[in-house]
């Protein structure tokens, strides 16, 4: 997602990572019990995982995350007016790129004089499922996280 953020930055598109709660708590990254711990885990996102986008931290009770549906890795795109124009229950770079290209083209079409009105569309997008990388991530959290995921999903 950092590469996508860079790709669209010159078009006035911003991109942030919003830190929520630990989806797979383990020995190394247990459940959150304080804002100090939440900031520490969020900083590791940058220092250990190399996330370069601005990282913002939600309240300890997840007020923002819960209001938006509290999925573990969802993505939203907001227009400057604060109106959401895209929401996905999972984050996928290609899906977001595709949506941004469409929205930026809408701006161009409006500039060229087309009269456009919004409508709603539902679509099923597809993301890569990389089990090896996923389990590697779980191992970073601790053996407990791996055990619990296996017990839940096999």
């Amino acid at each position, binding site marked *: 997602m950092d590469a996508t953020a860079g790709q669209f930055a010159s078009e006035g598109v911003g991109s942030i990572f919003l830190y929520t709660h630990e989806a797979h708590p383990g020995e190394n990254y247990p459940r959150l019990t304080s804002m100090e711990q939440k900031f520490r885990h969020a900083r590791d996102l940058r220092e250990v995982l190399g996330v370069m986008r601005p990282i913002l931290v939600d309240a300890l*009770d997840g007020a923002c995350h819960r209001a*938006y549906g*509290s999925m573990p890795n969802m993505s939203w795109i907001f227009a*400057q007016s604060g109106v959401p124009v895209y929401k996905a229950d999972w984050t996928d770079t290609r899906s977001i790129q595709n949506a941004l290209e469409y929205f930026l083209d809408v701006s161009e079409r409006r500039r060229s004089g087309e009269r456009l009105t919004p409508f709603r569309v539902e679509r099923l997008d597809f993301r890569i499922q990389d089990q090896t990388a996923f389990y590697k991530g779980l191992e970073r959290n601790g053996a407990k996280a791996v055990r619990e995921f296996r017990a839940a999903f096999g």
Partner: protein
Amino acid sequence: MTHDDLLSRYNYDEFVPAKFEPWMRFEAGPPLGQPAPDFPLRHLNGEETRLSEIWLRHRYLIVEFGSFT
């Protein structure tokens, strides 16, 4: 539910369906095309901001929700 209960349930201690499934509520999120709810957030240095302060600065804003785990 008390605020302490909410903190404990939202920040669940183990990944078991009884604890994580109640939070998978994507359909309950705000609709597209209507002004979205605003919330206070913090930068990594602890500085306070709001989601609206960030979306106002950009033509479009991508928000990825997630955590280390």
